[in-house]
């Protein structure tokens, strides 16, 4: 039995279909990522799975329980860390944790082992009011509160948004250790580079799932020839390459450009020659494997073309 199962799940707000017939299954113990930009529908999808928003159509089960019919029983088995900080700012760290434990009919002492790895990092501040914690500490407290009743499935809505690269890395290391304890984790993020931390990811855009796979397998889904191109004057390089008759797409990618050729086979020497004829001196053109962001953009392009 999958830990999370969705079939044609749909949610509309007026004329907008925020989640549009989404179907997917997450295995028990999996660390599953939902990746997409703001407005893709990630939060609406998660809110339906944690039983705080009723679907308009389709169905969803978490840990075998229906998110609509069995919502009461299900709430005891899932943990939810919303995107916005939602603890009590006027209660202390310790009071917040004790409160969440008591709501679920348990105690901090009984389930301390479940949260120890994370909670120990903020325990020195247990008498500080939650509203006065730093961003990173708030996050650790929120995660502790979401775990204190030993949920079987944990939902995290954009835990790393607006968080700097170092804290993001630390947060994912924490999730990795949590996964080792056997809990199923469903996490959303707008950062494509976080995909590699997940067992599998779903790419979401415009309310729909574009693709689902293990992060390493996305490269194989990119069917066109892809090259990393480097030369001085990046802005002019982008403009020039876009004018190349065989160009399918040209996107900046860190220190190089990713150039996709429209032909089934492309010779890097042709591209080098074209750039040389346009006055570019030292040019590097190397075939590369597609990353998750390449795949996401290609799928977005296809979705737009179909629309």
């Amino acid at each position: 039995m999958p830990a999370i199962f969705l079939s044609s799940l749909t949610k509309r707000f007026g004329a907008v279909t925020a989640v549009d017939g989404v179907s997917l299954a997450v295995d028990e113990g999996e660390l599953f990522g939902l990746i997409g930009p703001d407005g893709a529908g990630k939060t609406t999808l998660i809110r339906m799975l944690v039983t705080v928003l009723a679907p308009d159509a389709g169905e969803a089960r978490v840990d075998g329980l229906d998110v609509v019919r069995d919502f009461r029983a299900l709430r005891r088995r899932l943990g939810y860390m919303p995107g916005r900080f939602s603890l009590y700012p006027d209660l202390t760290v310790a009071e917040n944790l004790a409160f969440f434990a008591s709501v679920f009919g348990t105690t901090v002492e009984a389930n301390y082992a479940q949260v120890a790895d994370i909670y120990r990092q903020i325990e020195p501040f247990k008498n500080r009011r939650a509203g006065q914690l730093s961003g990173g500490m708030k996050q650790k407290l929120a995660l502790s509160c979401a775990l204190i009743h030993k949920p079987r499935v944990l939902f995290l809505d954009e835990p790393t948004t607006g968080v700097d690269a170092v804290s993001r890395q630390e947060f994912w290391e924490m999730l990795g250790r949590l996964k080792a304890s056997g809990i199923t984790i469903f996490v959303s993020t707008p950062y494509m580079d976080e995909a590699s931390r997940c067992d599998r990811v779903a790419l979401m855009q415009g309310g729909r799932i574009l693709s689902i796979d293990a992060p390493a397998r996305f490269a194989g889904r990119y069917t066109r020839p892809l090259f990393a191109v480097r030369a001085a004057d990046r802005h002019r390089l982008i403009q020039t390459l876009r004018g190349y008759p065989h160009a399918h797409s040209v996107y900046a990618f860190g220190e190089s450009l990713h150039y996709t050729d429209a032909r089934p086979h492309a010779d890097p020497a042709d591209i080098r020659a074209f750039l040389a004829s346009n006055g570019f001196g030292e040019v590097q053109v190397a075939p590369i494997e597609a990353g998750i962001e390449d795949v996401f953009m290609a799928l977005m392009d296809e979705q737009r073309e179909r629309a």
Partner: protein
Amino acid sequence: MTPIIEVDRLTRTFGSFTAVDHVSFEVGRGEIFGFLGANGAGKTTCMKMLTGLLAPSSGRATVAGYDVATQTERVKREIGYMSQRFSLYEDLSVRENIRFYGGIYGLSMRAIREKTGALLERLDLAASADTLIKALPLGWRQKLAFSIAVLHDPKVVFLDEPTGGVDPITRRQFWDMIYEAASRGVTVFVTTHYMDEAEYCDRVSIMVDGRIEALDTPGGLKATYAAGSMNDVFVRLARGAA
């Protein structure tokens, strides 16, 4: 390269806490300057001082030749600003936002009319001119917000995490706009959490605990720290401080 931003031992304290600690750097005209740092490193405080919103405790900074402490109103006329959190009024239409900001930045009604037409055409938004901002997708909003921030041809535009949460295609279109503005001589001062975007800057500074720990071209920083990517440079510097 004449500096358009000159910062000399700029400092800001809050009680016993020093948020910005004797920071000195220069930014050249037309440069794309990446201003990086971990959460809480002091970036926002520093940006507030450079935009004339917060008085320095000590030290000095000039933007476009004006002192940020004593000539704040002149500074504000020479700069544009946009952030991820606040940029446009959601209950006003596209056209109304342009008119509102044009007025704030002191443009004449005639200039606003002319610029509105050109801007709508360039962004392919003519059909949506009377659409409320809240009905626009985030990516369009951010591109519009940037265009409005440079509507009055400022000498410097400050961008505070302008691409947070934006889809990968729009994020790149946004950077196309940044390059285009820089090529017209606008100086771009930008913060971001996307390390690939750090590579798009001419120079990058990394702030750690109120100080500028490193400042160089992306290539120079990677060479100095023997790092494969800007992400590695960032993680090494910011984690070293903890």
